[in-house]
């Protein structure tokens, strides 16, 4: 993949949520870390073309994700931080089939593939289940399956592992691996980034560090632990 941001800023209610972010992401597995409110989810939305940068340019595999929606949905998928912010349809199979049908598959075909995805995770019985009767972790898994079923080239995962349980997470990792998809993974869990190629550390809307995963993570962890030990939070208030 090739995700390129050039001087991207995003202003909301006169607050600079992101401020002059330039990135050129070409590695296969990229982590994004940063404190609460540092702008990680905003960055994810921008990369998927869901919000318009106040200034700057964003291209994913050469596509202007804000303008060219048709190609954007085929290229980049996003799993939102909160499963309830992602779910559109009343039943599980409709939810998973929706994205597939948007890629141009027929309704029948889309449902067929949705069922395949479900059975890949051992949840065939969920097909006609009303989503609101699932537990939160189960709903989170539905969101992940919906996006993976679309097989985008790049997938942006915003804290995807906070809902699913350990066996499901292991299963998800295997599945993601088999899909041959580039990942941009936002997380607070440093250990989830083991084996990643590169890590971007956001701090109050700006890039604080960006580089080889292990080095950035080491520095990030040290700084977070230092902050956590101090009891004077005043200067970090947002």
């Amino acid at each position: 993949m090739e995700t390129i941001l050039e001087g991207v800023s995003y202003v909301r209610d006169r607050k600079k949520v992101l401020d002059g972010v330039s990135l050129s992401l070409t590695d296969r597995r990229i982590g994004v870390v940063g404190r609460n409110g540092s702008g990680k989810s905003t960055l994810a939305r921008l990369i998927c073309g869901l919000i318009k940068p106040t200034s700057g340019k964003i291209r994913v595999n050469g596509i202007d994700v804000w303008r060219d929606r048709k190609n954007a949905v085929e290229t980049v998928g996003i799993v939102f931080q909160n499963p309830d912010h992602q779910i559109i349809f009343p039943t599980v199979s409709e939810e998973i089939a929706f994205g597939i049908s948007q890629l141009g598959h027929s309704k029948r075909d889309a449902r067929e593939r949705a069922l395949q995805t479900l059975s890949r995770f051992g949840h065939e019985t969920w097909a006609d289940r009303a989503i609101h009767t699932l537990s939160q972790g189960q709903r989170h898994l539905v969101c992940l399956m919906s996006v993976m079923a679309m097989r985008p080239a790049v997938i942006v995962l915003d804290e995807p592992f906070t809902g699913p349980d350990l066996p499901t997470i292991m299963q998800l990792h295997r599945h993601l691996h088999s899909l041959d998809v580039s990942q941009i993974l936002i997380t607070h869990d440093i250990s989830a980034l083991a084996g990643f190629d590169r890590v971007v550390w956001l701090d109050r809307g700006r890039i604080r560090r960006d580089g080889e995963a292990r080095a950035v993570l080491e520095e990030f962890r040290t700084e977070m632990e230092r902050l956590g030990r101090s009891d004077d939070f005043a200067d970090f208030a947002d």
Partner: protein
Amino acid sequence: MISLTSPIETPYHGLPAGQKLLVLCAFTFAIFLTSRLDAHLAAVAFVSGVHLGAGIRFTLLAARRLLPVWPFLAVVILWHIATDDLVGGTVISIRLVATIGLANLVTMTTRLDDLADVFKTLLVPFERIGIRLDGLEMAIALVLRFTPLLLQRGTMLVEAWKSRSRRHPSWRIVFPLTLLAIDDAERVSEALQARCRAEREGRSWHVS
């Protein structure tokens, strides 16, 4: 969500939805043209016959769906007795039972998708005057999701309230409920954008 389609199979299930609607419209229109008692008696005989043609069990089910109408028919009759116009009262009562009964029969014997298709065809002329219908199917799916979601948001809020308050939530809880609802709409529109390849600009199916 359950629809009001009958679980009991009838011969009418097989008829094209368009034809059934046409008959219904013609029947309703015709009956409002006259106030003769004999014409109304014939109409009610027709509607009863059509029901019985589908079997006793179906007729009973249909009659149960008409239950809410009965008490109010009693009032109509009483009113007309009081105003000394028993024939008039009978005519109105028969008219209501016959038209509602026949309409219910169409509803009960027609699948949702088929009915939707007929309505969509009927709406085509509206497309010419600027109403776009391509979002209709999506809109229906969204309503079916939002309706239980709103009720669930209500339950959630009551729980959130109860978890920190010794009192029962007051009616005031409708205010935060509307916020939750609006936030849901915003999120769903973002979620749609994330996986829908249609252009963001461009008009939806409502008049614009």
